[in-house]
């Protein structure tokens, strides 16, 4: 089976005043059609810049692709011209982000913004742009699809009149106005309260299932990922360290960083489990540690971990980038 999204050996750096920051260091990641994959990692691990790379939203410069390729449905994203990119963004890949207010223009009504997007998608698909009246009907329909009540009235309202949860629903609606096959959701519920988070996650899960979309869900919260994804990719300092079935990852983490991350999360259902910190700090990507980027914080590090970067390899039915994966008790 060919993957819908295929990222291989993707290396991205940012050139700045202080030098070159090696932000993504050889990412290998495939997502099949209809699959739900979660990417989890802490601040600075590169998960958001990876998400933005999929639709080439990373400016170059200051970004610079050092190696690798990104293919979507067999097409080379890094080689696309502006027309092909416009079609990709919306008809291939749709994105939703953390803070819905940032992505809605405060001075235009919800309807006006949705209609603009719908007509832009028409143009990107090489069709005639439908008239605004027809686009308005489509906008109302998609607001209904995200379970917003009274979509017709909502079209005439402005972003500030909506709650955070409603705004995120509007952005999900906007993401569905094209004909996406992959939904990339970057911390979609981080700005929302827990009861609203549950509503929005449920909606995303239902829409993905109804429409047969693939989902790439990016979050720092293992609970959010665990709610929607069957497969989890763990990132650390610009590298994929583990890529496993969700149940296997939570039960038997094989990478020392995954183990540390799981031990650091307090669990409401297990009050006797004391959250344990991971010693040390995330590395400075201007001068990342040699070999395995996790070795300065790793309790199992040996000389080889400093000398040689571990490749992602098959261990115990998953992919792990650790020289000592076999030594980690299952």
């Amino acid at each position, binding site marked *: 089976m060919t993957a819908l999204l295929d990222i291989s050996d993707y290396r991205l750096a940012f050139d700045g005043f202080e030098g070159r920051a090696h932000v993504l260091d050889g990412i290998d990641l495939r997502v099949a059609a209809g699959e739900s994959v979660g990417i989890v990692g802490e601040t600075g691990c590169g998960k958001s810049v990876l998400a933005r790379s999929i639709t080439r939203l990373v400016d170059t410069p200051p970004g610079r692709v050092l190696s690798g390729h990104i293919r979507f449905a067999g097409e080379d994203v890094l080689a696309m011209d502006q027309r092909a990119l416009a079609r990709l963004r919306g008809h291939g890949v749709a994105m939703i982000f953390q803070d819905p207010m940032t992505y809605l223009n405060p001075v235009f009504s919800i309807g006006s913004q949705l209609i603009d997007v719908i007509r832009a998608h028409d143009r990107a698909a090489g069709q005639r742009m439908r008239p605004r009246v027809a686009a308005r009907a489509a906008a109302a329909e998609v607001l209904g699809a995200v379970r917003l009540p009274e979509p017709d009235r909502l079209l005439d309202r402005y972003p500030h009149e909506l709650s955070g949860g409603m705004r995120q629903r509007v952005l999900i609606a906007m993401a569905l106005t094209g004909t996406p096959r992959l939904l990339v959701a970057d911390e979609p519920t981080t700005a929302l*309260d827990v009861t609203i988070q549950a509503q929005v996650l449920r909606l995303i*899960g239902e829409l993905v299932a109804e429409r047969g979309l693939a989902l790439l869900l990016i979050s720092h919260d293992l609970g959010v990922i665990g*709610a929607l994804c069957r497969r989890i990719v763990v990132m650390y300092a610009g590298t994929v360290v583990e890529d496993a079935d969700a*149940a296997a990852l939570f039960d038997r983490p094989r990478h020392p960083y995954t183990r540390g991350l799981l031990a650091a999360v*307090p669990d409401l259902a297990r009050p006797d489990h004391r959250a344990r910190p991971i010693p040390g700090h995330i590395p400075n990507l201007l001068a990342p540690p040699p070999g395995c980027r996790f070795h300065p914080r790793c309790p199992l590090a040996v000389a080889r971990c400093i000398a040689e970067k571990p490749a992602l390899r098959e261990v115990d039915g998953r992919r792990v980038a650790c020289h000592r994966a076999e030594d980690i008790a299952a």
Partner: protein
Amino acid sequence: MSAPLLELRGLAKHYPLKGGRVVRAVDGVDVALHPGESLGLVGESGCGKSTVARLALRLIPPSAGAILFQGRDISGLSDSALRPLRRDMQLIFQNPHAALNPRRTVFASVAEPLVVQGVAGRDGVLARVGDLLRQVGLPDSFLWRYPHELSGGQKQRVCIARALALEPKLLALDEPTSALDVSVQAQILEFLQELRSRSGLAYLFISHNLAVVRQVCDRVAVMYLGRVVEEGPVEAIFTAPRHPYTRALIAAVLPPRPAGMPEAPLAGDVPNAAEIPPGCRFAPRCPIRMDRCTRDDPALAGTDHRAACWAASEA
């Protein structure tokens, strides 16, 4: 039981709007915090938990009610009368990146309360600040660093050192780990627990993260739309919650494991604090609403474990 360190009675904070409407940010809160105890204040955004902390520390004056600190009502005290009391109550904010002046060294930030309150002389300050940094687990080499040279966890430690400078009796922590990564959050939580067992400080611990609250608090008060709807010992709140809102909050927590979606999340949004529903303020979203709930406002009932719910009081 010892006398409470802090007691809030019928505490309210109302903000008038144009056109005669009033935002009832805090609308009748009764809780007590004993010396050395850690009280968690949980609830969704806009429920008034941060406003309660600011009122309790008298950073803002209340519209009604009493704030008893060590038995003395401080709700009407002037700024100058409050000044000596400020030593005893300190606040830690959510975002350590915004709580430190980027142009001042760690030493200057931590020394400031000592200088303002005139506690330590010129010679004593340096030794005292060094001692405070060691207490929060930072070496002396950090004294002359600037905030941009520190990680998020280190900055939060500096903020805690500054708050500890005057040896307070009460520390209000407003989402102290929400801006931090989980691996760093665990460090700060571990440190806060160790600090409390060592120093006997009382915490007013505000968080939206129930798992964190369960780990660091002795008692929990659950707030909804400006009111405490349930309050009690941490184990009772999490194992036998009485208020339907508390149950919904617990059910909405996503555990760190492949659990699938939580069952039937609470419908709708939190209402506007300027338009609080009649009767029980939770009634419009409540899954077990009865006729009475839309007419009569339930008070917190019970002794050690209290809930403001007609259904809970009948059960």
